C-alpha cells in the first residue's frame, strides 16, 4: 500500500479531529459556569489553576487553542466526583474493558455473519436462506435493551448458565487463567446480545454482496475456465463481495458503541458506557467530556482503519 495513500488518509482525519475539539469546546461554553468550572468542579485550588491555564480572560480563539493543546497532551481534567482522580486515568481504566466487549462482538459477528452469508449465497432463496434472512431481520429489530433482559432471564436467571452481571465474580479472587475464564464467562452474555444485531447486518450486507457478485461477468468467465464452483465463490466472488461489508462494519462502529452503552448498563459491565452514564447522573462534567473526546477520537481511528483495510482488499483504490 502506498505510503502517500496512508498519509493522505491521515491528513483527511485532521479536520474531523479539529471538528470534534470544536464541538466539545462549544458544549463546554454552553454549560452553566465558566469553562474551568466545567472541567474541574469541586476542587477550588485546581479550578483556580485551570482558570489561569485556560486563559479565560483572553479571546475565544486563544481559549480554544489552550484547550486543544491540553487535550492533545492527554490532560483531560479532573473528576469532580471521584476524589480528584484524573479523567485520563479513569478512562485508561475503563476503556480497555469496552474495547474487549466491542472488539469481541465485532469479530464474532463478522465471522458468523460472513460464514452464514457464504452458505446462503450458494443457494439463494432456498428455504434455508429465507429462514435465515427472516431470522436476521427479527434479530436486527429486537431492541438490544430488551434482548439483553431476555438473555438475562432465560440464559442467566432461569438456567444459571451464565453470570448476569459485572465483569468478574466479586466474591472470589482469581488470578491468571482462572481470572481470564471468569471474565470470559461474564463476557458471554453481553457479547452475545451486542453481536446479535450486528450479525444480522453483516449477514444481510454480505449476502447481498455475494448475490450481486455472482451475477457479474468475471464469475461466468471463471466458470467457463472450468473452475470449481466453490472455488469461484471463495476465491473470486467473496473478496469482491466483502468490500461493502468492510465499509458497513466500519460504519457500524459508532452505532455499536451506543449499543455498548446500553449493554454495559444492563449487565453492569464496568466499561466506558457505565463510566459515561454514572458520571452523567452525577453531573460529573469533566469525565463526561473526557469520555466524549476519547470516543470521538476512537471513531475517527476506526474509520481510518476501515479505509485502510478496504484499500488493502481493493487494489483499485490504492493506485489512485
Amino acid at each position, binding site marked *: 500500500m502506498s505510503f502517500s495513500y496512508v498519509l493522505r488518509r491521515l491528513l483527511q482525519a485532521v479536520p474531523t479531529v479539529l471538528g470534534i475539539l470544536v464541538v466539545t469546546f462549544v458544549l463546554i461554553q454552553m454549560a452553566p459556569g465558566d469553562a474551568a468550572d466545567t472541567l474541574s468542579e469541586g476542587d477550588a485550588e485546581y479550578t483556580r489553576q485551570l482558570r489561569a491555564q485556560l486563559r479565560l480572560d483572553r479571546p475565544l480563539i486563544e481559549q480554544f487553542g489552550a484547550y486543544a493543546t491540553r487535550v492533545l497532551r492527554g490532560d483531560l481534567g479532573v473528576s469532580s466526583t471521584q476524589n480528584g482522580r484524573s479523567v485520563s486515568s479513569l478512562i485508561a481504566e475503563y476503556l480497555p474493558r469496552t474495547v474487549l466487549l466491542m472488539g469481541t462482538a465485532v469479530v464474532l459477528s463478522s465471522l458468523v455473519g460472513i460464514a452464514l452469508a457464504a452458505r446462503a449465497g450458494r443457494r439463494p432463496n432456498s428455504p434455508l436462506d429465507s429462514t435465515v434472512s427472516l431470522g436476521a431481520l427479527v434479530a436486527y429489530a429486537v431492541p438490544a435493551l430488551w434482548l439483553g433482559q431476555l438473555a438475562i432471564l432465560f440464559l442467566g436467571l432461569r438456567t444459571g448458565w451464565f453470570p448476569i452481571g459485572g465483569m468478574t465474580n466479586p466474591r472470589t479472587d482469581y488470578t491468571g487463567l482462572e481470572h481470564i475464564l471468569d471474565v470470559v464467562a461474564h463476557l458471554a452474555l453481553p457479547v452475545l446480545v451486542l453481536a446479535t444485531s450486528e450479525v444480522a447486518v453483516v449477514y444481510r450486507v454480505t449476502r447481498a454482496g455475494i448475490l450481486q457478485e455472482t451475477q*457479474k*461477468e*468475471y464469475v*461466468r*468467465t*471463471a*466458470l*467457463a*475456465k*472450468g*473452475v*470449481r*464452483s466453490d472455488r469461484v465463490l471463495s476465491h*473470486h466472488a467473496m*473478496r*469482491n463481495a466483502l468490500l461493502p461489508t468492510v465499509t458497513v462494519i466500519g460504519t457500524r462502529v459508532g452505532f455499536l458503541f451506543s449499543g455498548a452503552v446500553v449493554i454495559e448498563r444492563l449487565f453492569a459491565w464496568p466499561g466506558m458506557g457505565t463510566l459515561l452514564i454514572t458520571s452523567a447522573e452525577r453531573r460529573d462534567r469533566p469525565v463526561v467530556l473526557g469520555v466524549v473526546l476519547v470516543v470521538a477520537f476512537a471513531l475517527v481511528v476506526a474509520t481510518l482503519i476501515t479505509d485502510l483495510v478496504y484499500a488493502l*482488499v*481493493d*487494489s*483499485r483504490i490504492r*493506485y489512485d
Partner: protein
Amino acid sequence: MARRAVSRCPLPSTDPVGTQPLLAVRDLRVRFRTAEGFVQAAAGVSYDLFGGEVLGIVGESGSGKTVSAMAILGLLPATAEVTGEIVYRGQDLLDLPTEELRQVRGRRIAMVFQDALAALNPLHRVGSQIAEAITTHQHDVGRRELRDRTVQLLADVGIPNAASAARRYPHEFSGGMRQRAVIAMAMANDPEVIIADEPTTALDVTTQAQVLEVLETMRRRTGSAMVLITHNLGVVTGVADRVLVMYAGKVVESGAIGQVFGEPAHPYTLGLIGSMPHLEQEGGRLRRIAGHPPSLIHVPRGCAFHPRCPYAQVPAPCAIEVPALRTATGPGHQSACHLTGALPPQPTG
C-alpha cells in the same frame, strides 16, 4: 519465437477422414421464464462445427446467437430451460454432469468474452487469472513453469513487457491489450474449440482489426476450430469459413462465406448486407431493414421475419407456416425462406 511446449497429449482423432463434425448442435431450444411469459431465446438451432474451421454466427441482439453459445458450456442462468443436443466427442454436453463438464470448460472448449474489463476479476492480477486457467486443468505444473508459461502466453498475444504485464491488474490495461489477455487465457490449455462471443464489439475499429488478427494467429497455431459470434458482418468476412445468420432464435441462412455473402438467399441477410457501408458506394442512403426486432415472447406467426420482409407473401405462406431450411444456390448453402429461389434478382454491393 520459441514454440510453446504442447501442454497435453494430442487427443486421439475420432475421425481420421475429417468428415465428422467436432461439435454438433441439434435442435437447441432455450427459453427463459419471466414474469411476462416465456422468452424463446433459441428456437431450434442446429449446426455443425468441423475441426479447424471458423464458423461465424451473425445476427442482431436478441437473435439468440449468444444464448446458443452459452448453452454449449452450460453457462446459462438457472432460469433457462434448455432442450436439444450438443454433441462433442460423442457426448451430449447438455446431459453431462457438472464435474465432467468442468473438464471440458476451458480445456477442450474455451470462451473469449466480449467485455474484457467485466470478464476479468478486477481484484486479481492478470497473470494469476491466466495461471488459474492452467492450474485448473493441469495440477502438476511447478511455480516457475507456470510463471513462464503465463508470460509466454501474454507475449504470444502481443502484449509488450509481458513479465511485468502479468503482475498488473485488469484496469491498468487498455481495451485492446485486455482483450488480448482474455484471448491468452482462453488459449492457455490449447483448446480444440474456441467460442468468441463478440470479441471485438467493445473496441474501436483499429483495435478490432488487431485483436482479430491476434485471435486468428493463436487459433492457427493450435489448429483450433472457432465459433465467432458477432453482429458485425465486416468482422466475419475476413475470418470465417462458413457463416450462420440468425434471427429471432433461429438459423435463417447458412453456408460458406462466399455463398452467403456473394449470393445471399434470405431477405434478412440481404437486408444486413445492404445496410453495410461500402467503399465503392456512390453516395445515396444506407438501406435499413424496416421495423424492429421481434419480441421473443410474442414471436410473429409463421416466418418470424415476415413483418419486416419486403418480399413477404401474406398471409400465405409467410404469415402462417414456419419456413424450414432448404437448399439455396448450391450444396451447403441453406436458407429458411418460403421464397428461396424465387426472390427477384438483387443488386449486389
